[in-house]
Structure formats: C-alpha cells, structure tokens
C-alpha cells in the first residue's frame, strides 16, 4: 500500500495560508464595524469615561467645593491609603464576606435545593408551574419595594414578622431586627427573599433541559434516585450552578439599594458594605476623592471576579458551540 498522505507544513500548496475557519463576509467590510461601533461607543461614553474620571479623582483631594471651583490637587495614593487603613473599610469588608457567604452563596444553594426538590418530588406539572411563579414574584419587585416591605415587616415594635413569631410561640419577646449585629442579617434575609428565585429558576431550567434518555438509561442500569442525583444530575448541572453563583457574586458588588433603604448602613455603620460607603461618601457627603478611591477598589475587586467569570463563561459557551 502507498503511504498515507501526511498533512505536514511543508506539504501545503503554495497558495495556502492558514486561517481560522470563519464564514465569508457577504457584506462590505465596514458593515460589521459600523454595527458594533455604535453600541461600543455608547458604552465607552457611559462606562469607560466615568471610570477614568473616577480614577483621576481618586488620586486627588477632590471635594464638592473643589470639584466646582476646579481646585483640587494631586495627592498620590493617599486616598487609597486612607481607605485601606480605615477601620470603617475593614469592617465593611467583613460585612461583605458575611453577605457573600450567607447571602449570595447560601441563596444559590437554597435555590438549587428548591429547584431540584420541585423537579424531582413534585410530579404535577400544574403545581410546579404555580409554585415556580409564586417563588419568582419577589424577583420581579424593585429594591425600593423590597426594602420598604421588609422594613415594614421587621419593624421591631409592631412588625408582622415579630407578631407572627410571637403568635406561633417561637419567640417570647420582640427581636430587635435593626440593632447592631442583627441589621445586616435582616438585609440578608430580605435579599434572599428577593433573589433566591434567580438560582432557582436557572437550575430548574437547567434540570428540565437535561436529556431524558440519560435518566432512562440510569433507570435501566438500576441506579437509585440518590445515586442518579449525586453522580449524574449534579455533575451535569455543574456549569449551570456555576453561572448562578457567578451572577449572584457579581451582583454582590452592585448591591447598595437594600442597605440604603433598610438601614442606611446603620446602626453605627454596622451594616455597611464597601459599595454603600462609596455611595454614601460620594453622593451624600461629596467626598469625591475618597469615594473615588472606594469605587476604584471595588472596581478592581469586581474586575477580577468578572474576568474569572468571563473565562469560565467562554469555556461554557464554547462547549455549547458558541464563539
């Protein structure tokens, strides 16, 4: 037999230039650039410009007066030093850690458990749909309603939650929901009420779209429901759950509104998150330079997380035939 033709570099014909497989451009060359150009320009104007602005002022001693009079001077990284050295910032980082663990993470876990419980143990389609819609309604509410509603519900003296717990005999006296040490927990409760539906919906839909034939194969193989859950369902839902995690994590760095409405960071800064301080210092107190330093620090942390997320997302999207 003749030797097989080998695809080596030297074997390539003269005309050949290696290039990535892509669809040919039927339209003129400028068309895609123009299509993308407008949205990109918009984002540059409303995202990149302000970020640069913030970075500039984070290096200056800008306050409200200075900003309007144009009198602010370069002070190097002392804003950053102040922020990083301040107890307020360090406390807020602890609060953030608490929020990420018991808010974001726990929400995804609870959402996953709820979604799988709903799918595996509730057999009636109608009931599933009704429960799903019920559980998702809080997500459709704006933060102002959520904040106001929970402030109302948790009012220590005559709030519905305390009253309900009293009536049920679960507590003997009112819980002071907005005291130091508890107020952040109250925010986390409200936030979980608001957002558990997101991981729930994502995981539920992920489960629905898993191929039924695989489950039939497992049934024929004789695998118990628990085994199927542990060895097949959860591994197959891995990426979907990861996406839910990432979405909730990145949201944590945008999270301000509930803090603002429910506790204003109080009492005595006990429920402040870094974002809230940036908001408070920049918007309420117009310490622009310091707020900018906060903002840039948050920006850097979230940029790291977003980058990690995008890397993961690229993998997922590629595996599904995108990009």
């Amino acid at each position, binding site marked *: 037999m003749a030797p097989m033709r080998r695809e080596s570099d030297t074997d390539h014909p003269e005309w050949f230039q290696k290039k990535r497989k892509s669809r040919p451009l039927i339209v003129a060359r400028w068309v895609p650039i123009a299509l993308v150009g407008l949205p990109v320009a918009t984002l540059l104007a409303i995202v990149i410009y302000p970020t640069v602005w913030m970075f500039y002022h984070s290096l200056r001693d800008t306050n409200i007066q200075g900003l309007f009079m144009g009198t602010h001077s370069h002070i190097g990284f002392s804003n950053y030093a102040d922020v990083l050295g301040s107890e307020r910032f360090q406390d807020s980082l602890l609060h953030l850690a608490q929020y990420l663990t018991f808010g974001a993470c726990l929400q995804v876990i609870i959402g996953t458990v709820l979604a799988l419980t709903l799918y595996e143990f509730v057999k009636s389609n109608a009931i599933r749909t009704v429960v799903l819609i019920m559980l998702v309604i809080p997500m459709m509410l704006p933060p102002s309603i959520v904040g106001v509603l929970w402030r109302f519900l948790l009012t220590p003296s005559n709030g519905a939650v305390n009253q309900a717990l009293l009536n049920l005999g679960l507590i003997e006296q009112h819980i002071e929901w907005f005291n130091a040490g508890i107020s952040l927990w109250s925010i986390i409760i409200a936030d979980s009420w608001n957002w558990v539906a997101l991981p729930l919906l994502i995981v539920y839909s992920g489960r629905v779209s898993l*191929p039924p*034939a*695989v489950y*039939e*194969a*497992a*049934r*024929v*193989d*004789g*695998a*118990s429901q628990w*085994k199927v859950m542990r*060895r*097949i369902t959860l*591994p*197959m839902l*891995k990426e979907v759950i990861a996406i839910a995690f990432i979405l909730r994590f990145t949201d944590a760095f945008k999270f301000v509104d509930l803090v603002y409405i429910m506790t204003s960071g109080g009492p005595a800064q006990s429920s402040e998150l870094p974002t809230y301080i940036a908001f408070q210092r920049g918007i309420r107190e117009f310490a622009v330079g310091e707020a900018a330093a906060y903002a840039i620090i948050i920006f850097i942390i979230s940029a790291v997380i977003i980058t990690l997320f995008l890397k993961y997302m690229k993998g997922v999207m590629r*595996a599904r035939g995108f990009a």
Partner: protein
Amino acid sequence: MSGVSLQKVNKIYGSGADSVHAVQDLDLEVSDGEFVALLGPSGCGKTSTLRMIVGLESITSGQILFGDRDISHLDPQDRNVAMAFETYALYPNFTVADNLSFPLEVLGLPAELQRKKTDEIAELLRITDILQAYPPELSGGQQQRVSLGRALIREPSVFILDEVMSHLDAHLKFSMLFDLKRLHRELRRTMIYVTHDQVEALALADRVAVMSNARMQQVGDRNTLYNRPANVFVADFIGEPPTNFFRAEVAYHDHDTIISVMDSDLTLQPGTAAATSLRESQRKEVIAGIRPQNLGFAETAHFLTADVEISEYLGERSMLTVVNGTTRFQAIAPPDLRVNPGTSVRLYYEPLNVMLFDPETETLIA
C-alpha cells in the same frame, strides 16, 4: 438468560376521547438466545412496545414474561434487562470507562472487578483506546459502541437495541451490522433490535417482527416475509425497491385463471395454489403484487410487455421504470443492459412469484 414472551399486550396513552391506542393486542415470542428485529415505520408502536419490555412504560393490559417470570409490573432495574438507546444516552460527564462500569458500580461490585469487566467489554467492542475520553469527544460510531458496551456489561438476560444505527452513515452502518451479528454469535444473548430500516432488520435478525398501526403484522424470517408476506403492508415495506402492486380483475376460463391489470393491457398468470384458491372463492378483484427482482430477462413462459420510461444504471444492477397504459412499475435488470427510453421490453416472471391480496382486507390470498 431467558426468552421473552409478550401476551396480548396493550398500551393506551391518555384516556377518554384523546386516548391513543399505541399498541394493540400484541403477541410475540422470542426464544432464548434468539435475535429478533422489531420492524415498522415511525409511529407504528414499536417504540412503545420496547419501552414496555424494558419497563420504562407501564402496560395497560396483557403481560410480559422473561422466561417464565412475569415481569409485567416490575421496575426496569428488577427485570435484568439492558438497553442501548437510539441517542446513545451516554452519561456526558463520565469517561467512557466510567460509562461502561456505571451499571456495575450501581450493583456495588468491587472496584477491581469493575475494572476487569470494563476492560473485557472494551476489548470485545474494540474501544480500549478511548476508555479515558468523554462521550462528546467521540464520533457517532464510537459512542454507539460505548452504549452497546454499557448495556452488555451487566450480562442481562434480555438485551434491547433501539434504532442504534439510525444516526450512522452508510459505510459505517454496513460494517457495524457485521460486528453486531458477530457479537450476537459470540454472546448468544436474547436480543431485540428495534428499527425502521428493513435492510438492517433482515440482515441482522433470525426473525423479523413487522409492526404497523399498533398491531403485529407478521413474524418470520427473510424468506417468509419476502415470498409469503401476510398483507400488502408487509409486501410493500419489505424489499427494496418496493413491490409493484396492480389493481386487477380476475377472469375464470375453463382451465385458466387470468388476472388483468386495470388501466393497461397487462395480464398476469397466478401460481397454481393461488389460482385454485381464487377459483374457490370466485373473487372478481384482487391486488396483485410482484417484486422488481422477480421481473427479468431470462426467458420463461410468462411475461409482461411495457415501454421503458427510465433506465437507471446502478453499478451492480440496473433498474427499469416501465409503463403500460397508465400503470407504472419497476424491474431489476442486469447492469450490462442498455435500453433507451421508449423501447418496448418483455419482462419475464414465474407465476409462483405473483402475490395476490384481497382488495378489501389487503391480506394475502392462499
């Protein structure tokens, strides 16, 4: 190992006015170690039947026995049946090795034994080199082997294959057919192979069970289905190119029974047995059928005359589409035949090969 016996099995989906009778009074006997193909067009109920045998679908009425064990209402895992799925249904997050050993893992077999059996089965199916790959990385043919392996590894008493070749391309399919046949010969397991492709069914199975419209039409080997099809459906469904059918009138002369095809000047001579049976019933009308393979150029006493419309050269053979009046039919010719369209040809046949069907019930006469 055991045989499979389906007795008056029914499957009705839904209830009341919307109900669908997917499988109707189905009987099927598969003996121990036999390879039976369940053949039918899509929607004929074969998939429901197979799902009932496996236990993925409940039985509305009737019973299914494995050997003499009634398994009609057992869970799939208690039936000791294995199945290879049309879509392969491999666990995408497992390596090939883990896919193969999963049924053993479920049984709680020691890891070492699992590995040993996995290696054995991989050897048998020639997939040793891909044991560490993940299913999405594999070609269709490889995935299919893995899915066969996963079904085989548990050494089930009954082995079900659901359209396992329908996603393979022609060349691969052909070599897989031989492999599967060899596999059955080595393992001697009771196998039920579900397919809509008659070529696969005939090639593989000891016997073929033809289903249509929720009912079993005929069970038999190749020669029975070819030469004595129970009805028009079977005659049409089995064989490629499909059987030529003619609506015809019957005339009884002193000794002869002559079948004249409507809308043409063709006449057919039935075989002696058929002729006798016709005479007894004195029917006026029949559906006559003759396979294109049975019309040829080797001269015999009987022939049909028609004009060539299309002559196709197919390499190993030629195919003629001919017309007489408004009746169009086909014949297989040797490859070296060269005829131009419009030429009149004589196509010879043996009366024995003329199949006659009742025009109302479409069942075979005699």
